[in-house]
C-alpha cells in the first residue's frame, strides 16, 4: 500500500534521511526502530507531507504522493498521530475530533456517527466530548490523539511514540489498542522507544541508523537478533528475547570493565 524508494529528506541544510526504502502492506503493523536522531520522526513527517523530500519516491496505492499537500494525503487515507500528542488544548474534545476530519468533510449526522464509531474502544473520550482537551490526563490525551487520527477514516495510520510519557499500565493499554486496530484491516506504521514491545506486536520491522535503513525483516527475526538486542532492547529485553544471553554477557562485560 505504501512504498518508499531512494528517499532523502532533511531540514534546511542538514540531511537526515538517506536512500530510505520501506513498504507497508494492508493490514500489517510495521515497527520503525532506531535511536534518538536516527530519523524515525523525520520519515513520518516526510510521509505525511510536513517535510518535502529531496529525492526519491513515495507511493500510496501505486500513486506518487511526494508532491501532494498534507491535506491531499489525509484525503487519500494517510493519518499521522505525531509525537507528544499535539492535541489542541483549548478546543473541546469534540472540536479536536472534528478537526481530524477537516480534510474529508462530513455532514453533521455522518460526523456524529464517525465520532461514535471511532471512539467505541475509548468510552472515556465520548464521555468528555464537551470539555476542553486540556482537562484530559496524559493517557486520555494520547487516546484522543489516536481517535483524532482515525477521524479521517485512514487506511494507513502512523503512530509516533504513542506511549511517550505514559504510566506503564497505560503503555500496555496503548499496545493492546494498536493490536486491535490492525484487526480492522488498518495498516499501521509504529515508532516506539520501547523497541522490544513494539516488535512484539508488529509483523515486520525496519531499523534506522543515521538516517539509513540498516536492517529489515519479520519482527520475530529482528527480536531474535543479538546485535539489535544489545543496542535497542536493553539488558532485560535481550534476556527475554531468547538468544540474547551471550549478548547480555557481552554487555555486562562492557559495563563492568571500563
Amino acid at each position, binding site marked *: 500500500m505504501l512504498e518508499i524508494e531512494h528517499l532523502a529528506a532533511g531540514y534546511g541544510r542538514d540531511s537526515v534521511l538517506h536512500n530510505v526504502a520501506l513498504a507497508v502492506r494492508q493490514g500489517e503493523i510495521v515497527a520503525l526502530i532506531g535511536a534518538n536522531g536516527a530519523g524515525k520522526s523525520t520519515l513520518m513527517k516526510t510521509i505525511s507531507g510536513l517535510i518535502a523530500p529531496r529525492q526519491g519516491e513515495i507511493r500510496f496505492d501505486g500513486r506518487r504522493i511526494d508532491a501532494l499537500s*498534507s491535506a491531499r494525503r489525509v484525503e487519500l487515507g494517510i493519518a499521522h498521530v505525531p509525537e507528544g500528542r*499535539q492535541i489542541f488544548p483549548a478546543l473541546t474534545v469534540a*472540536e479536536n475530533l472534528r478537526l481530524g476530519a*477537516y480534510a474529508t468533510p462530513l455532514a453533521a449526522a455522518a460526523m456524529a456517527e464517525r465520532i461514535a464509531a471511532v471512539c467505541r474502544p475509548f468510552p472515556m473520550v465520548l464521555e468528555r466530548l464537551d470539555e476542553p482537551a486540556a482537562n484530559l490526563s496524559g493517557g486520555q490525551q494520547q487516546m484522543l490523539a489516536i481517535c483524532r487520527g482515525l477521524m479521517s477514516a485512514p487506511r494507513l495510520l502512523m503512530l509516533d511514540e504513542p506511549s511517550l510519557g505514559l504510566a506503564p499500565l497505560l503503555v500496555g493499554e496503548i499496545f493492546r489498542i494498536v493490536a486491535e486496530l490492525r484487526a480492522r484491516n488498518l495498516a499501521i506504521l509504529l515508532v516506539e522507544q520501547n523497541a522490544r514491545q513494539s516488535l512484539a506486536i508488529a509483523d515486520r520491522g525496519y531499523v534506522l541508523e543515521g538516517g539509513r535503513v540498516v536492517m529489515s525483516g519479520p519482527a520475530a527475526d529482528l527480536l531474535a537478533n543479538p546485535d539489535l538486542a544489545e543496542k535497542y532492547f536493553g539488558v532485560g529485553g535481550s534476556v527475554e528475547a531468547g538468544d540474547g544471553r551471550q549478548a547480555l554477557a557481552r554487555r555486562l562485560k562492557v559495563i563492568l570493565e571500563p
Partner: protein
Amino acid sequence: MLNAVQIIIGGLLQGSAFAIVALGFSLVFRVTGVVNLSQGAFCILGAMAMYFLQVDFGLPLIVAAAGSAVIGLAFGFVCGAAIFVPALSRLPMSAMLMVTAGLLTFMEGLILVIWGNQSYALPPFSREAPVLIGALRVPSQGFWIAGISAAIVLGLWWLIYRTGFGVALRACAQNPLAARLMGIDLNRITLVSFALAAAIAAIGGVAIAPLTTLQFDSGRFLTVYGFIAATIGGLGGMAGSITGGLALGVAEQVAAGYLSSLFANALALLILLAMLLWRPRGLFASRREARADVPTQRRVQRAVVRIEGGGAWGFIVALVILLAALPFLVPTGLMASLTIAMILYIAVLGLDVLMGYAGQISLGQAGFMAIGGYAAAILATSYGWPPLAGVLAGMALSLIAALILALVTMSLRGDYLALATLAFGLLIDSLTVGLVDITGGPSGLVGIPAFSIGPWAFATPRSMYYLALTLAAILAAALYGGMRSGFGRALQAIRADPTAAAALGINVSRLKVAAFAIAAMLASLAGSLYAFNFHFLSPDMVDTPHSFETVAMLVLGGEGTLVGGLFGTFLLTLLPTVFQPFALYKTMVEGGLLIAIFMYLPEGMLGRIAVLLSPRHARREVGSHDDARA
C-alpha cells in the same frame, strides 16, 4: 458630574476605535504570534477610500462604506500574500516586526502619494443633531460607531467560535504542526486572518473618520493605541481587546478633559509601560490560549557577515580618503545633503550597536535625536550655554531617558522593547509639538547659533561635514575596538542566544541596557549637530518616521558592520536630493526597501559586498527554521 459623564461617553467612542484596531491586532497575533504594526495604516486606508468613494465619487453611504471595506480586504490580501505570509515562513519574529513596520511606512507613503499630506474629515453618516439624553449630548456618529463596533465583534465572534473556519483558525493558533497534520492549510488561514484584520481596520477607519481628522500618517497613532489596548487586554483575546480599548479611550479622555491633552498622550505611554512591567500578559492573562510548540521568540539569529583580513583595512582607508575628498567631488548643491547624511550616520552608528550587535530593535531613535536637538538648541538660545555644553547636556538627558526606558523593558521579550521605544518616540513627538512655550511648537525653534568650540565656529555645511566626519570616524574606531573587546563579544553572544549567554555568566540585562544607552547618546549627539547645522529645529525634523528611517538606513547598509550604515544613510539621504521627483515617493520607497531588505537581502549592502569580496571568509548563514512551517 454631567461633564464627567460627557467625557466618559467621549472616551467610550474613542475607545471603540482603539478596540477595533486591537481586535485586528489580536486576530493576527493569535494565529501567527506577530505584532502587526501596519494595522493602523489599514484604518487610514479605509477612511481615505471612503472619502474617495463618498465625497469625490458621490456614492451613497452604504455603497461607499462597503467599497472601502472591500478595498481594505483586497489590499490586505495582496499584502498578506506578497509580503506577510512569505516572510513568516523564513524570518525570525524580530524581523517580522520590522517587516510590518516597513509595511506601515510603505502604506503611509502610498497614501501620501495618492491623497497628499492634507487632513481629511468625512461627513458624519447621518446629519441628525446630537441626541440629547437628559442633558447629555451624544453625537449621532457615536451611535454609528457603537453599532459598527458591536457588529464587528459579533461577526468576528460568530466566525471564530461558530464556523469550521474558526475552529481551524483556533487550531492553527494553538498548534500549527498538528493543524497541518489535520490537513489545514496554515498559510491560507494566516492569509485570511491578515486580510480580515485589514478589512476590520478599514471599517473602523470609516467609522471614526467623521469624528476626527485623519491624514496619511495618523495610522501609526492608531497602531500604537490599538497595541496598547490589546496589551491591556492580553494580546490574542477578543474580550480583552474590547475592554482594553474602551478603558484606554476613557482614561485618555478623562486625562485630556481634566488635565491636558498633552498629559493624555503621556498617560497612554505610562499605561503601556506599567502593563509591560507588571502584567505583560494583560489583565486577563489566564484566558490567553497558549501556543503549544512555538517559542515566544525564535532564538537563533543570522550570523553577521563581515569583511575580514587584510582587505578590511584597505577598504577602510580607501573609504576614509573618499569621504574626506567627497566635498570637492560633488556639486555644491549636494553639500548640504552630504552634511545631513554624515550627521545621521552618527545616529545610525549608535543603532548598529543596539541592533547589529546586541540584537535589540529600537523604533525610537529619533526621539533621542529630538532630546539632544532640543536640549542643545534651548540651552544655546535661551540660556546662552556654549554649544558643546548643550550637546553634553542633551546626551546626559538622553542617557537618563534611555536608562529609565530600558530598565522597565529590558527584562521583557525583544519585541516589547521595540514597541516601548515606538511609544516613547511618539510621546516625544507629542511633547515637541505640544510644549509650545519651550519648544516653539509645530513652527519650531529659530536662531540656533552655529556649533563652535572656543574660537572655532562651524558655520558652513562643509565645516559641519568635516566635524561630523571626524566625530563619526572617532566613534566608529572606538566602537570597532569596543566590539572586539569582551564587551563586544558579550553583546554578540546575547544577539546569538540570550539564554546561552546568560548561562555563560553574561549579565544580559546590564549589557542590553549599556547598548541601548550608547544608541541613545549617539542619537542625541546627532540631534544636537542637526540643530546647530540648520540653525533651526522643528518637530517634523526629528519625528517618528525618522526612527523608521534610521532602521531602514542601517539594514540597507548592513547590520553589525559599523560602516555599513554609512552606505544606507548616504543612499537614502542623497537619492531624494539627486532625483527631486523621488522626494514624494521617499516614505513609500523607504517602507518598501525595509520590507525588501529583510526578505531578500538580510545581510545588507555591505554584507553582500563582504560575501563577494571574501567568499572564503564569509561565514555560513545560520538560518532559523521552524519545523511547523518548513
